[in-house]
């Protein structure tokens, strides 16, 4: 097992024992946090980049499949039946005593390039811990419990997030799998085939609401709200939507020395002003819950002695308020038009994606908050700025989302960190939630 740069948080967890036959066997330990820590270490080592560079485990690569294989092995060791669906999602089932609609939990194992060890992984590891606890304590439940590892949640490789959960939601047209490509021009369909999946059969991965009753995901917060308030758990009520677009600015490239300031049409200066407007809008009093980010700027010709003739600014507008999200995007574009006119540049605006925010069902959230309260007072309801598999699953099955704190609010970077103790607590609340859902009047 690779030597891992975990930072000491004070108490060292007791050394977990692992299966001697393979370094990736299911960790056993009487301490739940130690088991979780061991599982996190094993999964973190399955990466295309070295530990100090972060985890790289992109969608539909052999590395992602290897991680799925390890987790599938853990569920099998616990005694569950495990299968891979047509979209590459791994689903493990613990049958119930008589219910039909399954209660599910899970997350994803793929990462962004050079990302963290917890984004998605925490939820998967928590679900393994839940499955272990159910077996070890012989806890009976009526409904089948299903533990899901979704494929391709991160949009990093193909520009499409939540590929596996979108399949569960029945939202893929097989033809689109050929159209979605990565930076090397490999289509999603080709990538799926390369790891043994048949893209034409993706429709078989759809979840039917008669087979599933509810789904709850545990995830790291990826923000700093919980940490700042000293809280241990977050229960999500709203998931943000996003409108993403590019503003392609055409100015006039010219000599940086000989061109007087008053005779310029500088595309980069225009882009900079637009980026600041986007930030200003998100910061004003009308926009509590709106987040605007100019995440990428490409400048042409990109020479220190040439006034930029072209700049492409990539903007991401996120909001928990559906109408306001689109109004904000339009507002930024209108102000960009005014900036362009004043500066003598022209704009082309291209919409890249537009998804609506989602209100998660209150009744599921109430079950989760009840479960939280049985463990601690230190929880709150909050919105999620990031999209998650839960958002897609919720289109077919009532779903919920539970957060554990992220240190420094960092995510998508190697410094991303959540404590095994917090994840362990989260998994206990998750188990409690699943059992409450199992007994819920809605299902009886």
């Amino acid at each position, binding site marked *: 097992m690779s030597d891992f740069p975990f930072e000491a948080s004070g108490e060292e967890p007791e050394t977990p024992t692992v299966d001697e036959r393979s370094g990736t066997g299911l960790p056993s330990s009487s301490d739940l946090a130690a088991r979780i820590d061991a599982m996190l270490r094993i999964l973190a080592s399955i990466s295309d980049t070295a530990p100090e560079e972060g985890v790289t485990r992109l969608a539909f690569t052999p590395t992602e499949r290897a991680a799925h294989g390890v987790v599938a092995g853990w569920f099998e060791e616990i005694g569950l039946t495990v299968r891979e669906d047509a979209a590459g999602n791994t689903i493990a089932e613990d049958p119930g005593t008589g219910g039909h609609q399954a209660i599910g939990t899970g997350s994803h194992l793929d990462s962004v390039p050079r990302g963290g060890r917890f984004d998605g992984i925490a939820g998967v590891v928590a679900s393994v811990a839940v499955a272990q606890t159910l077996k070890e304590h012989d806890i009976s439940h009526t409904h089948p419990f299903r533990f899901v590892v979704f494929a391709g949640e991160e949009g990093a490789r193909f520009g499409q997030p939540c590929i596996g959960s979108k399949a569960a939601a029945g939202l893929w047209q097989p033809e689109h799998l050929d159209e979605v490509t990565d930076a090397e021009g490999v289509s999603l369909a080709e990538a799926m085939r390369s790891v043994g999946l048949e893209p034409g059969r993706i429709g078989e991965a759809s979840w039917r609401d008669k087979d599933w009753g509810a789904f709850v995901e545990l995830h790291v917060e990826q923000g700093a709200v919980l940490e700042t308030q000293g809280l241990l758990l977050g229960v999500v009520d*709203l998931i943000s939507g996003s409108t993403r677009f590019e503003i392609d600015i055409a100015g006039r490239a010219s000599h940086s020395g000989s061109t007087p300031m008053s005779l310029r049409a500088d595309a980069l200066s225009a882009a900079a002003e637009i980026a600041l407007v986007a930030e200003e809008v998100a910061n004003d009093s009308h926009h509590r819950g709106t987040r605007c980010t100019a995440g990428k700027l490409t400048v042409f010709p990109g020479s220190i002695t040439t006034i930029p003739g072209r700049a492409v600014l990539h903007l991401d507008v996120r909001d928990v308020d*559906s109408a306001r999200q689109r109004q904000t995007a339009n507002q930024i574009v209108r102000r960009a038009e005014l900036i362009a006119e004043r500066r003598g540049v022209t704009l082309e605006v*291209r*919409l890249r994606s*537009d998804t609506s925010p989602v209100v998660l069902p209150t009744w599921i959230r*109430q079950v989760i908050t009840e479960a939280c309260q049985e463990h601690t007072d230190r929880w709150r309801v909050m919105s999620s700025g990031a999209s998650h598999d839960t958002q897609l699953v919720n289109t077919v099955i009532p779903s919920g989302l539970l957060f554990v704190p992220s240190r420094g609010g960092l995510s998508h970077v190697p410094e991303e960190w959540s404590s095994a103790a917090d994840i362990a607590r989260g998994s206990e609340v998750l188990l409690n939630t699943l059992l409450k859902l199992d007994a819920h009047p809605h299902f009886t």
Partner: protein
Amino acid sequence: MNTPLEFPWRDIARTQDLTERARRELAKDIVSAAALRGEFTLASGATSDHFFEKYLFQTRPTILRRLATALAERIPASTDRLAGAALGAVAITAAASLETGLPFVIVRNPKSRDGQDTRFAGEIHRNERVLVIEDVISSGTSAVATAHAVKRAGAEVAGVLAVIDRDEGGADRLGEAGFHYEFLFGVDDL
């Protein structure tokens, strides 16, 4: 200005158009927010495994904002004032007021006997054209009482406009009382 702009998204971004997708999303968000599941004892004493807690949809700006836009489209241009009965219709009426620029009045205790204890919070004047806004209409008795209170104040009832109609007789009752009635979402929509 010679800007070649491409805005395919303008159709998505125009919140004035309740396109099918936008309507479905709004309906789904209303249900997600307010349709509770559990064990509930109703006012009648009967138990139910579901309960629609209307304040849960009215207190979320993501829903309230879209509802205000949808309501605003149905408010006649000749309307002078909106009226909403406390407590349920206050938030939605205030939202519609902000959206349209029309003043509103809160009707307190509309169902009081002979209107003795009915009070208006805000102003209402004789001969104004007042549109009654309702959040949820079931039997319609509350909406009819509110509309009558408006009439007793000497104003003209331009109509009754509700967010949700539960198909429990409200339309008939309002029709019999002579009030024009429209709603955004019926039972089939939610």
